[in-house]
């Protein structure tokens, strides 16, 4: 059974009541005992260790590569360069990334050569013995500069690139990865602006930030005859299968991806890098090849959050009513667009500068630009984190200009007939005491987020009258997919949760799923489970032979309206002598619909808050002339346990979501509002407005005292 439009099955109240009980993760025992096996934990017989050589220069022609010393090192089984692999390009949508560079390198860290060896030590040593000569080319590091005449062109052959689905839509400037304009016409916009009493414009900047999962990217590839097997950290196994097939030409039905446990994702694990070179090393050696990135590589050769510059302009009436809004958003796309999963090659989150409000005339222009730095990728609410920081800072600035209370200004501009938005805003505002004197302030941010969509299916099978399994091809990057599926199945079947076993299968033995990401799994796989289990329940009454199974594929249409409102409010103190910002307490309000896994739901919000706190206060992947400056997690700091303030979670269970039983997405909901809420609180505390992330102590200090004097 395949359904485009999912009917909402009706369920008895007692079946749904089980969702109130805190869940115990089905895979939990494997995780707390260390028995859960992640990519790097697999060690197939005869396995070789892979290591890769990265480019040390930002833009250069490769004049020669000498691999002879590496090849002679004892233990080395194979060495590959771009010439061995050939002109093979990969990417999540646009295939613009070579497996190994051939003639040119475009960023520091780009893969130039690879080794497979009997030991990790030999592989690493061999990489160091490879000698490459480079002839430097002019490089471009600033996206706006990349659009000027005479700027270095990174991809002279851009027009010839394919996508994983076929040819590429042509683009104007060769350094533009993608560009999309959305909203009313320019004429309509200007007419709306003309009716404003006040027009304000602000420019905001946000840095590259790394997803910071504790498990670096890794992959194992081996062949059994013509079948290519893959275990990797990719959270979208079917997507990886498609990308591997498109790049290598190996038939998609002869690639089997077995991903199960993934050690954190946060948007970064949809992008695969070394799976491709492992494919060629495995094919060449006839043995399983495993590559696990070091964290040095993780920080310099993957795809962190895009840096962005956002110019926001809003027209407003004296009473605070928004009449027009425009945003020009430029994302630094880095040297390759291959880490972006969508056909527009932009981050659609860039459109969300003011999406929580009702603005009659809006126009957004969003661009991603090639520069000679590591590729821009997806990270927890891609584009939206940047847009909401800008938008919600902008709204407070407008309130300041008009002399209005920031909460009142927001309330005035909420979408009509949307009591939920008002409730979210009011609940967040209610817990905030008024600022008590200089150095202490409160701030708030409101946001509206659409959940992800796409296709996914499960098979629900009755093994006996009271024993069931659900087969899914989804990998679990930690969000609790398996437990969610089990609980939805249990509720739909009207049985106890322990009657259900969720079985994760490879791409060869499960229905397609678009993968974990964009907070889509509960919406799509939850729905598929619900529909299939409900249908199965009906059949059980007459079933005499087992197994009985129902398969269901759901395709949530792109652009469906499944919004949720959220708000973050914080109270900060600012040390004016050091610039240090301390979040004293925080509250997250989430319009969550029906909560299926209450503990995981709370965990997503708490963890999201921590994620947002890091993005707000400390995280910046510094890149200087294309060189990533952070060499480890000792430099790129992630928040630690004592860095976390008291946090209150407020859940509004409206039951209006499009997910199963009215569930709404929550995965990217906790982090979005934290940076602007803190920036807004800082301004109320000390009168300083910061428009660049992260909000470091030094930035605050400099805003208060001016640039520190050097010697």
């Amino acid at each position, binding site marked *: 059974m395949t359904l485009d439009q999912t009917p909402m099955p009706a369920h008895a109240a007692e079946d749904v009541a089980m969702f109130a009980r805190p869940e115990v993760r089905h895979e939990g025992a494997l995780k707390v005992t260390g028995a859960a096996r992640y990519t790097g934990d697999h060690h197939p017989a005869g396995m070789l260790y892979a290591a890769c050589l990265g480019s040390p220069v930002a833009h250069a022609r490769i004049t020669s590569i000498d691999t002879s010393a590496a090849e002679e090192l004892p233990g080395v089984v194979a060495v590959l360069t771009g010439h061995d692999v050939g002109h093979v390009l990969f990417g999540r949508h646009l295939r613009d990334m070579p497996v190994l560079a051939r003639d040119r390198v475009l960023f520091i860290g780009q893969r130039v050569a690879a080794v497979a060896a009997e030991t990790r030590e030999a592989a690493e040593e061999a990489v160091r013995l490879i000698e490459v000569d480079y002839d430097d080319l002019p490089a471009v590091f600033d996206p706006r500069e990349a659009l000027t005449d005479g700027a270095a062109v990174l991809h002279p052959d851009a027009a010839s690139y394919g996508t994983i689905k076929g040819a590429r839509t042509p683009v104007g400037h060769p350094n533009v990865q993608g560009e999309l304009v959305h909203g009313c016409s320019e004429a309509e916009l200007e007419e709306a602006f003309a009716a404003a009493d006040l027009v304000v414009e602000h420019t905001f900047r946000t840095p590259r930030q790394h997803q910071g999962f504790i498990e670096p990217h890794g992959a194992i590839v081996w062949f059994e005859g013509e079948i290519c097997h893959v275990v990797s950290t990719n959270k979208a196994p079917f997507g990886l299968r498609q990308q591997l097939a498109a790049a290598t030409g190996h038939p998609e039905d002869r690639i089997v991806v077995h991903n199960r446990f993934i050690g954190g994702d946060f948007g970064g694990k949809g992008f695969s890098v070394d799976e491709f070179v492992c494919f060629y090393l495995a094919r060449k050696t006839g043995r399983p090849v495993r590559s696990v990135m070091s964290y*040095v590589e993780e920080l310099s050769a993957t795809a962190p959050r895009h840096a962005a510059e956002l110019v926001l302009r809003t027209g407003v009436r004296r009473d605070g009513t928004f009449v027009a809004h425009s945003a020009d958003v430029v994302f630094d796309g880095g040297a390759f667009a291959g880490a972006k999963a969508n056909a527009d090659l932009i981050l659609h989150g860039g459109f969300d500068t003011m999406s929580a409000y009702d603005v009659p005339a809006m126009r957004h222009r969003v661009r991603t630009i090639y520069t000679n730095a590591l590729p821009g990728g997806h990270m927890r609410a891609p584009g939206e984190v940047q847009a909401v920081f800008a938008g919600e800072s902008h709204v407070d600035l407008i309130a300041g200009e008009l002399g209005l209370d920031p909460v009142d200004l927001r309330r005035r501009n909420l979408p009509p007939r949307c009591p939920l938005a008002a409730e979210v805003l009011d609940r967040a505002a209610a817990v905030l005491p008024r600022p008590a004197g200089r150095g202490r302030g409160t701030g708030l941010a409101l946001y509206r987020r659409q959940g992800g969509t796409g296709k996914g299916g499960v098979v629900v099978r009755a093994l006996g009258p009271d024993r069931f399994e659900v087969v899914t091809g989804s990998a679990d990057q930690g969000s609790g997919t398996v437990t969610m599926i089990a609980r939805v199945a249990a509720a739909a079947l009207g049985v106890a949760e322990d009657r259900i076993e969720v079985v994760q299968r490879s791409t060869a033995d499960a229905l397609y799923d678009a993968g974990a990401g964009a907070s889509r799994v509960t919406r799509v796989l939850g729905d598929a489970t619900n529909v299939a289990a409900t249908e199965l329940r009906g059949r059980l009454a007459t079933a005499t032979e087992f197994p009985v199974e129902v398969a269901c594929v759901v395709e949530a249409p792109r652009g469906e309206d499944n919004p949720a409102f959220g708000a973050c409010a914080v109270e900060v103190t600012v040390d004016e002598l050091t610039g240090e910002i301390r979040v004293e307490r925080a509250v997250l309000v989430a319009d969550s619909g029906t909560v299926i896994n209450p503990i995981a739901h709370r965990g997503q919000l708490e963890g999201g808050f921590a994620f947002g706190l890091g993005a707000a206060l400390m995280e910046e992947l510094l890149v200087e002339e294309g060189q990533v400056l952070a060499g480890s997690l000792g430099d790129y700091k992630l928040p630690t346990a004592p860095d976390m303030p008291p946090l209150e979670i407020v859940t509004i269970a409206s039951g209006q979501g499009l997910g199963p039983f009215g569930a709404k997405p929550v995965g990217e909901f906790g982090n979005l509002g934290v940076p602007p809420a803190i920036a807004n609180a800082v301004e109320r505390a000390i009168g300083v407005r910061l428009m660049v992330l992260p909000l470091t102590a030094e930035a605050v200090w400099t805003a208060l005292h001016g640039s520190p004097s050097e010697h």
Partner: protein
Amino acid sequence: MLLFDYHRPTTVAETAALMAELGEDAELLAGGTSLMNLARLGLAEPAHVIALADVGELGGLDATPDGGLQLGATTTIRHVETSPLVRGRAPGLAEACGHVATVRIRNQATVGGSLVHADPNQDLPPMLMVHDALARITGPNGDRSVPVAELFLGFFETVVQPEEILHSIVVPPPARGFRAGYLKFLPRTKDDYSTVAVAVGLTAEEGRVTAARIAVAGGGSTPLRCTAAERALVGTIPGEATALAEAAALVREALDPISDARGSSGYKREMARVCTTRLLRRLGTEDAG
């Protein structure tokens, strides 16, 4: 990383003999927290490593008869931090040790390692400096004693010669009326290296400062004593605002930090000033322990 040969001597004499035989192909290994990192990243490539863990005479943490302390080079930071003896005789030292990285690292990292590694951001050196601690160094020509304040030459460089071993640290008994404190400025995370950190030791008698020590981590290419600031405090009332502001400004002037992700050079100097002010104020209101 290179798979170095691993040696496990049990006496200082054996260690010295190995060092003489292996020369610059060998590195000493204490806790491993620095050397293993450097080796793994290919930044150190020793052919031989001489592990000091079994050299009993390099370990230990003892009271000296005069009321001071002797810390063996291989004594862990965690041992110093949690030792009742240290808490009694040099509480400032225990305090500084409690700020080193994380518990797990403190269980491995050693007193000697944190000195000879000579990373200017380490927490222990400035605190040992304000205690006028001495480093006992043993070598082919016998032992010598060097004030910790004179141990450091530059980034990752000390006066300890390739054929010498840092044997132990002697912390003299604190003078009557001595108190010490440590302020580590961590604007990012709790487990970070400091942007700057300041150690202060004050001795006061009859309401006047009779001796002062100020040392800074992260203020330049070495941990650094700020003698001009120390002099400015002598004779003043502990915690008195003008005096401590003057001293703190002199600390700022004494520093030449590098700019990095933890702050620009100018900001680090300003933060050293602020931290010094705050620490002097705190110590001014504390009773001498």
